[in-house]
């Protein structure tokens, strides 16, 4: 039986998804939609993808029992160490997969958007690896707050273009990337999250699914059971959460918790908690939940974390929210910073600001003794050091 969490033939998860794109992008999107599943499921792709993930990225990533964190919160907490991937986050799982798809489709020019710069770096990295031309759009505001990643992308040979429209963050970088794509239809749009027109959300989810695929056998090894009680992941567009949830979506016994960025507070007017503040609408070619005013104008979100500073959420997550399959929680800037300092101090791991949001809900949950919890530690915090240092005294 087909899972209800798989998209239908038009790319819909329930009422969410679809491909709301200008006519000019139709041939590109159709080419991808007609081919992506066949490519991903081919032996040739799987062999190359898995081999690069192993030898180049460093997978499988460890599933680490965080003893001191567990003790503090009265549960058995495992960290899925996506921060130990090459380039420092889960993003590379997707870029390795998509670059192989792009090559299979004969594309030589790669286009990407980036928020925190992690996807931009992961894209620039695989482009360097494959010798392909790389253009990355990044919001002007994010270029300033994630400077180390901008430098890395440039060193890797990517052209970084500042998105100067709107809020000058991830939303606008994505707008500019799509506009560039319209004007350069020969390019392959290597999208960074489970967002955008179908089939992009499903393609990215399939490529990130390696996270939960590994979790299954790692948990079995460590606990005797494939399934944890709870999985926690942060959600901007939602790619790391999609990967961490993927193989557990149909198992209702596994509680899924998605954590959004509340910024200065959900109702402060400075927030990115899309599920709490959004309504059904269309953004970046997909029908989903998005933050908008009464006339459908998209509202500028806010979060200290550039990777979560996004007014929408992928259509799969909109469906998980609406169907109540996942529980949506949120964490403020302050709570995320505190969680980052805590993990650093008691486990010796500096998480990315995005990831810190997932950790920040631990004090808000009442755990049962022996509850097995996996937190997807999506990225490392090197890129955020400046922000962490700035707030150290708060």
């Amino acid at each position, binding site marked *: 039986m087909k899972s209800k969490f798989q998209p239908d033939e*038009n790319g819909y998860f329930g009422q969410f998804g*679809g*491909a*709301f*794109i*200008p*006519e*000019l992008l*139709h*041939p590109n999107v159709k080419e991808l939609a007609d081919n992506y599943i066949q490519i991903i499921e081919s032996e040739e792709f799987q062999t190359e993808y898995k081999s690069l993930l192993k030898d180049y990225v460093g997978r499988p990533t460890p599933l680490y029992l965080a003893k001191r964190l567990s003790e503090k919160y009265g549960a058995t907490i495992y960290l899925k160490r996506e921060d130990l991937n090459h380039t420092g986050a889960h993003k590379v799982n997707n870029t390795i997969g998509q670059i192989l798809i792009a090559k299979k489709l004969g594309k030589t020019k790669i286009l990407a958007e980036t928020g925190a710069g992690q996807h931009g770096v992961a894209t620039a990295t695989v482009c360097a690896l494959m010798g392909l031309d790389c253009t990355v759009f990044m919001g002007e505001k994010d270029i300033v707050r994630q400077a180390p990643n901008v430098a890395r992308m440039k060193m890797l040979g990517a052209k970084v273009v500042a998105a100067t*429209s*709107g809020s000058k963050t991830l*939303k606008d970088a994505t*707008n500019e990337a*799509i*506009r560039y794509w*319209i*004007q*350069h*239809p020969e390019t392959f749009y290597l999208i960074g999250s489970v967002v955008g027109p179908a089939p992009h959300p499903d393609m990215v989810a399939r490529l990130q699914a390696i996270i939960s695929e590994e979790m299954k056998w790692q948990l079995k090894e460590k606990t005797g059971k494939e399934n944890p009680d709870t999985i926690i992941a942060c959600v901007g567009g939602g790619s790391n959460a999609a990967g961490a949830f993927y193989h557990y979506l149909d198992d209702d016994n596994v509680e899924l918790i998605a954590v959004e960025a509340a910024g200065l507070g959900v109702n402060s007017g400075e927030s990115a908690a899309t599920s709490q503040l959004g*309504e*059904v*609408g*269309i*953004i*970046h*070619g997909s029908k989903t939940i998005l933050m*908008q005013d*009464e*006339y*459908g*104008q*998209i509202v500028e979100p806010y979060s200290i974390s550039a990777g979560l500073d996004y007014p929408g959420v992928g259509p799969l997550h909109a469906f998980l929210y609406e169907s109540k399959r996942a529980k949506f929680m949120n964490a403020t800037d302050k709570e995320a910073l505190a969680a980052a300092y805590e993990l650093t101090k008691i486990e010796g791991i500096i998480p990315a600001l995005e990831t810190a949001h997932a950790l920040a809900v631990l004090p808000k949950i009442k755990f049962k003794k022996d509850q097995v919890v996996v937190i997807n530690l999506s990225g490392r915090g090197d890129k955020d050091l400046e922000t962490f240092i700035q707030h150290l005294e708060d």
Partner: protein
Amino acid sequence: MNSIQQLFQKKDKNLLSIYFTCGYPKLEDTSKVISALEKSNVDFIEVGLPYSDPLADGPTIQDSSQKALENGINLDIIFDQLMTIKQTNKTPLVLMGYLNQMLKYGEEKFCQKVVECGIDTLILPDLPMVEFENHYKKLFDKYGLTNVFLITPHTSEERIRKIDSYSKAFIYVVASASITGAKGDISNNQVAYFERIKAMNLKSKLIIGFGISDKQTFNTACKYANGTIIGSAFIKYLGKNGIDKIDDFIKPIIS
């Protein structure tokens, strides 16, 4: 019969349509711009609904939309403005906006309002054909509204034929692989594309847009289609000269 079809019965060559952004340069300029365009003998007018994230638009229309939104424009004000101008205006209006604006306003309510304003033709650049077929065709038929489809140099012949069968007003021929905005002269590649479309002998009338900016590009495009739409060049002109000298922009193009 659709208002643009009626227009084609009277005139089917060298049509000039002008796009403008509602509430730009000033909030109250919507009806003034329409009146001025009518006085200048523009054949039909594309009324742009300012949107925060207009994916198909270049910097000029993006900027005018942002300015209009800062001026406080919204759909309710626009419908009020259009109701007022309806009393005097005889030039057909075509509404151009993004799907999310209609979705959030309420699809039925939106269609109702459009009809009340005397408008029967819509351009929604992010409404794909499959969504039209599955849902919107029925909705638009119910209100007597016509959707204008865009075709581009990359649209397949099979798809163009299908679009032709759905089109009741005209087919919007996007001049190049691009977002809106002036690009100077029309290239040989573009001419070859226009000739290819013309040779398909479609039942629908053809209007070329995106990158048409002046008399020269207007004349060239009109050789291959029934008319053209000028948008960004006009918005740029408004930004520089305000709304008092609109005739000075139009006259040199159609004279």
